[in-house]
């Protein structure tokens, strides 16, 4: 039997959490909501079936809790995504684990990290345009093929997910982890790959001024990737908590700001005028060349307001908040999305994981049986001084 945390269909719970976390009071208690009201349950399921040759069972060593997972549990995620998943499924797409079946080039027992995208190759389909261009994150066939609908492992009923003792993965999704990378670093490879993918989505001129909104995992890794793969000039990071500020500086931020005074500080740093509308927050006429929103949408408004005319705003992380798009129109901004990873991002992320200062990023590891604590902790990670919270399913008896 396979111990698994399962997300099941429960319209009542979904609507309850979604409505409650939409209010200001509920928003503060979203951790509690996610832990207690979300349609998640721990149960024993039969072991997953291998869909085809080329697949292997994977036993997770560590499985991270991602911001999009929390959005899912609190019902904040957009209903847009409901067509791209198949219920019930086991979440968990940031995984380091051991393979249990022999595959060509990948003997059983290999320590691997998972690239969760379920493109045409795992699905056994003719490549679509995106997959043909080696950009599986843009795959058009994520509802078709050998396994059920699901944009990634962790949203698909047939594959299972990282928050369990075992799931299945296609050989193309797995990357061997060198021995020099320990599990705590390896579990961060997936978000690192997304960050690398994000900074590669747009051309970044040398010396360009960049703003990273948010200093959670995504924000920190984006900053890291900017320093590693671009020649960006000053990088300003908006961080809320003390440890985030420290870490942001460590990974190369020029200056770390708080959100309430970001506009003023950026005005001072990049020039321009500060405008104060009758309602709503201040914005800049002038500002940074590029902004990365790494906050699941709440920072998008800030990003739009402090980017110079003609600049670019990149959305990393799943957006789940509405925003006033007037600056996009008025300042003629480019709004760019960045989803998952593709191409060389994963191997590069693996390389970066070896060198980057990632010690202490995974500082809270829970067994599956303590999932409510884990979810609660992850919801308040910033406040509690953590970056990444992960499950260790091997700890469960």
């Amino acid at each position: 039997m396979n111990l698994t945390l399962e997300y099941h269909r429960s319209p009542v719970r979904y609507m309850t959490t979604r409505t409650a976390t939409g209010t200001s009071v509920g928003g503060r208690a979203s951790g509690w909501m996610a832990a207690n009201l979300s349609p998640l349950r721990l149960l024993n399921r039969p072991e997953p079936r291998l869909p085809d040759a080329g697949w292997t069972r994977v036993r997770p060593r560590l499985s991270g809790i991602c911001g999009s997972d929390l959005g899912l549990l609190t019902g904040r995620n957009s209903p847009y995504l409901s067509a791209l998943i198949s219920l019930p499924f086991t979440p968990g797409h940031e995984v380091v684990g051991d393979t249990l079946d022999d595959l060509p080039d990948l003997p059983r027992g290999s320590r691997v990290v998972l690239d969760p995208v379920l493109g045409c190759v795992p699905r056994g389909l003719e490549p679509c345009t995106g997959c043909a261009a080696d950009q599986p994150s843009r795959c058009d066939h994520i509802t078709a093929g050998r396994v059920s609908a699901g944009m990634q492992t962790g949203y698909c009923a047939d594959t299972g997910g990282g928050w369990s003792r075992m799931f299945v993965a296609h050989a193309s999704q797995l990357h061997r982890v060198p021995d020099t990378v320990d599990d705590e670093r390896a579990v961060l490879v997936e978000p690192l790959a997304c960050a690398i993918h994000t900074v590669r989505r747009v051309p970044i001129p040398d010396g360009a001024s960049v703003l990273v909104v948010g200093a959670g995992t995504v924000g920190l890794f984006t900053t890291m990737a900017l320093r590693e793969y671009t020649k960006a000039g000053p990088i300003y990071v908006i961080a809320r908590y003390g440890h985030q500020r420290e870490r942001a500086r460590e990974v190369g931020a020029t200056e770390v700001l708080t959100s309430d005074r970001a506009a003023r500080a950026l005005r001072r740093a990049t020039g321009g005028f500060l405008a104060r509308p009758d309602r709503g927050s201040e914005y800049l006429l002038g500002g940074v060349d590029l902004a990365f929103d790494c906050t699941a949408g709440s920072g998008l408004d800030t990003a739009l307001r402090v980017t110079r005319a003609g600049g670019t705003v990149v959305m990393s992380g799943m957006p789940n908040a509405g925003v006033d798009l007037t600056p996009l129109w008025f300042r003629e901004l480019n709004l760019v999305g960045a989803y998952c990873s593709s191409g060389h991002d994963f191997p590069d992320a693996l390389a970066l994981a070896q060198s980057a200062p990632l010690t202490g990023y995974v500082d809270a590891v829970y067994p599956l049986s303590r999932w409510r604590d884990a979810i609660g902790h992850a919801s308040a990670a910033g406040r509690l001084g953590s970056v990444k919270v992960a499950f260790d399913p091997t700890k469960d008896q």
Partner: protein
Amino acid sequence: MSRPGFVLEVDERTPALLMHEGEGFRLEKLPLGSRVIYPPESLPGLRDLDAQIRHALANPLGREPLHELLRPGMRLTIVFDDLSIPLPPMRTPDIRQRIIEQVLELAAANGVDDVELIAGNALHRRMTPAELKRTVGERVFRSFFPHHLRNHDAEDKANLAEIGTTRHGEVVEINKRAAESDLIVYVNVSLTAMSGGPKSVSVGLASYRSLKHHHNVHTLRHSKSFNDPPNSAMHHSYNRMAGLLGDNLNIFQIETTLNNETFPDYVGFLNKREWEWNLKDQAAYLAFKRANDLAPPKHRRQIWHRTAAPYGVTSVTAGDPIQVHEVTTRHVLRQQLTEVDGPADVGIFGLPYICPYNVNSIMNPILVMSLGLGYFFNLYRGQPIVRPGGVAIYYHPVRNEFHPVHHPSYIDFFEEVLAETTDPVAIETKFEEQFATDPWYIHLYRNSYAYHGVHPLYMWYWGAHAMEHLGDVIFVGGNRKTTQRMGFRSASTLDDALEMARERVGSSPSINYLHAPPLTMADVR
């Protein structure tokens, strides 16, 4: 008869003494033996003020009577001190209004058509129309606003004129209209010994280019104090500039001095010596203190800023700026000077709710610093009331709040510059240029009601002398974070503060408390 100022020595008979702390006050029991410097009691104001003004204009010092200087076809510019003085603002009618009305009366009688009124606000924020109206009066305002009653704009390059360069290489650049006038009439209120005289035109109408020659760390560190012009490097610079102006311009100076009636009758206890408080004063103290402490901060500020001082005018003098200013300074000192026998290890200052730059506004941490380490610390002649290396203890809550319209550059200065350094010289070299030329600040200074971008730096320089002189600065009741950001310390009570000061001054330090406001200037021997 008003009694002269004196130094009280705290003994066991002394009741708790009043201490201002921002928008509030408290009674504080000082350690035995502390010395408290009280100002002379308020001098009687002039009885028939209008007649006095008329007399001054008709019998100026070192000048022809004003009416002889006025003729048809001339260009007349009347410049007046802006809202940074007096503090708190005086009850209407303002003395400036009374004088300007009489000057205009004479100008009208002599057929002068081309008259402009300019507020000498230098790099201060522009005065709002309501503030202008309050200062010059309804009739003047109606006749001249908005085209001929204006604020000076130090960033309007087209309307600045360079007068020349002093022998020390200081560029003198002032308002063009004033520079091209046949006669400048300057209407002044001298609240402290630093203002008025050579400072009036050379500072009030100047540009940044000209101001930076005296508003800098070096000058201020050599102004000991800047309230004692003969010993103030800043005033030496003013004098050189004023000399140049005097050679090139025709300035008719009218100066006034005020007495110490700083607070209205209903808070009369603020003007009285504590052991002379009667039951009514004590009841008023309790009632006001309670009401004030309980009031929501916004209302509290409004109430404080709405009080106007019932000042009496103690002198009106007109004529040649230098001769007039001698008389004026004498009157100011007569009202404020108290002799003190030597400095002490610890100086205590209660900082009030207002300083020259937060009229109708918020006193932000930078302004607290400039009021405490700038204005109050420099209220001395001879030597400071604290010995070199001694400790200054201030009373102020030092809240981290800023007026977003009036003090935009202050916010950035506090958040960015002070986070990096508090050393005035380092700030001057690294940041002054940036702040002075930032186009947004300039835009807000010219078109909104903001202080000039460089102004917070000037405020910081203002305390440069004190920072060099003092061993430690402690704010009683001060917000820990904000005081720390500025390089100071905070204590919750006086006892704590003295405990903290112990490492510098020992366990039984001598203490001088400057009992102000009303303004007191210590003549320390």
